[in-house]
């Protein structure tokens, strides 16, 4: 059983949803990403998404774009992100770690090499926001061999055709995009999410559904937890960490968000 599968089963048993926390590798502490990951895990997050910065992301809002630019300027590279995962595992981080980014850095690394290196370091899955199943045959095969789950996105615009297309590719969880748009904090993040999650569950019954994009407040997490298997918080965490550079503040925020996942 994969780490992600075990995680969602345990949460189901405890009647909680997953708190999924996103941070960009190397921002704000290049070389000490493991401390950030350890803090997030110890504060109660169930899954960590670790962002691989890309110069030209299409799905990211201003907060994560700026974070990516800072990380790139600090010298973060795909190999250094994989190293971050390995070091975090050595430091005792046991929650599932999902690498999230754009396709080109993975392609340039070599897709088989990347899948193997990521899995060996202790990563559990990937989310590549500009790689839809239409172009993902080889990536899916390489990930299967390496033992990495492939997480794909579904959105409010997704038709039946798209749900059918994503179904055989989906692993780990489905990343349900709460609204059309890019990442970032948003007041009305959870409107219409219930219907979308229900539709996805009907079409793809065996894979957990986590909701992201715009989720920033415990109220959002609570609303999402009522209907989905997990809530993803990214921009708020990234922004706060950048502004405070304080791991205690990070721990408090994560703990507060986690409390909202208990049904």
């Amino acid at each position, binding site marked *: 059983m994969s780490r992600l599968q075990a995680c969602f089963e345990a949460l189901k048993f405890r009647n909680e949803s997953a708190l999924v926390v996103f941070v960009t590798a190397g921002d704000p502490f290049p070389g000490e990403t493991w401390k950030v990951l350890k803090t997030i895990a110890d504060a109660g997050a169930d899954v960590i998404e670790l962002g691989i910065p890309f110069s030209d992301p299409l*799905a990211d809002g201003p907060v994560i774009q700026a974070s990516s630019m800072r990380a790139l300027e600090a010298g973060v*590279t795909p190999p250094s992100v994989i190293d971050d995962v390995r070091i975090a595992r050595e430091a005792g981080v046991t929650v599932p770690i999902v690498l999230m980014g754009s396709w080109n850095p993975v392609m340039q690394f070599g897709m088989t090499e990347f899948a193997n290196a990521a899995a060996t370091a202790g990563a559990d899955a990937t989310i590549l926001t500009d790689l839809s199943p239409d172009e993902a045959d080889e990536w899916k095969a390489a990930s299967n061999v390496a033992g990495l789950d492939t997480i794909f996105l579904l*959105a409010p615009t997704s038709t039946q055709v798209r749900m059918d297309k994503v179904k055989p590719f989906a692993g780990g969880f489905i990343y349900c995009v709460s609204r059309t748009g890019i990442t970032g904090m948003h007041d009305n993040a959870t409107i219409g999410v219930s219907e979308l999650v229900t539709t996805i569950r009907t079409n793809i019954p065996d894979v957990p559904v986590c909701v992201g994009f715009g989720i920033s407040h415990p109220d959002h997490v609570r609303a999402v937890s009522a209907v989905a298997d997990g809530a993803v918080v990214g921009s708020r965490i990234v922004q706060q960490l950048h502004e405070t550079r304080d791991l205690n503040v990070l721990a408090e925020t994560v703990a507060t968000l986690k409390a909202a996942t208990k049904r």
Partner: protein
Amino acid sequence: MSSLIQGPSFSSEPDARGHFGPFGGRFVPETLVPALDELSRRYEEARTDPEFIAEFDRHLQEYVGRPTPLTFAENLTNELGGAKIYLKREDLCHTGAHKINNTIGQILLARKMGKPRIIAETGAGQHGVATATVCAKFGFQCCVYMGAEDVKRQRLNVFRMQLLGAEVRPVESGTKTLKDATNEALRDWVTNVADTHYIIGSVVGPHPYPAMVRDFQSVIGRETRAQMIERTGRLPDVVLACVGGGSNAMGMFHPFVSDESVRLIGVEAAGDGIGTARHAATLSLGRPGVLHGSLTYLLQDAHGQIAEAHSVSAGLDYPGVGPEHASLKDRGRAEYAAVDDQEALDALQWVSRREGILPALETAHAFAELRKLAPTMSPDQTIVVCFSGRGDKDVEAVAERLGGMHV
């Protein structure tokens, strides 16, 4: 007369999923896939719909001013002493460049799809102006993304867009040029896809854009082919065009692709020189990767981060290139050269003085290559240069480079 229906002499690329050999495809956030599916479907209907084609042709004729002339460049021919040189005068299109061929086609599609809002990216501002123009004519709301750096160096076109009723949004992210304007436009589209159509200005982006923009632009090559046969009794030996994203080149090349005797030469911007780190010679020096929704040659570092392109010409200042050019290069069907800023500036003045036609800085790159090529050919051979746009927009930038006006 133009027609979008392709005969057997045309290339059969791309495949149904938008692949030109290993290039092209559709690498976008899932949110956009249904919109691209719809666009593909609508475009497939439109390109074989006699009514759509008739309307497209009518606007090209009545509004754009097509067919554009083919001009024999007698003075350039005499001076270079080699091949006979002809100019396909896209600078005489309404708005001053070839870009409007594509925006007419896409605005008609947007109307069919019932999307009231249009967004576009622009580098030199020519595509932005062409988009603002069709939005004014057909009654659409228009928002153009333009890198803050380009807003500065193409001020005239910014004001033109505003006069035409468009909102110009300067883009401050990344390198503040065409690449970043394209990112912002795609992010806008992801957000507003329900009521917005994105008019991409070149043969780049996710499927169906590279094929669709090529088809709308291939009126250039079809007219040229017919005009050259009428004028000289045969096909040209060389077809020459500048390449940034590559839309004027692709539109010119496409109808000649199966004419094996015709050499197709694209000219990229070498900026400070291909031996330097400051250039935009994507096909000459890049390697395959994914940017803006398709797999193609890119300027990038070892880890896949996109590199900054450099060119005196805002329209060529782009680290990617259309995927069909990547395919034509790898298949050896087209050749790609690169000329630097100084050669382009020299060529701009040379063409202005010898022929009395001021080319855009983008177009001047093709002329810089022409100066090297024509003398190596014989007087019974012919070259057609795609005169992609006029240079009025560049006067200020060129004056600055040349140290001001001489009065």
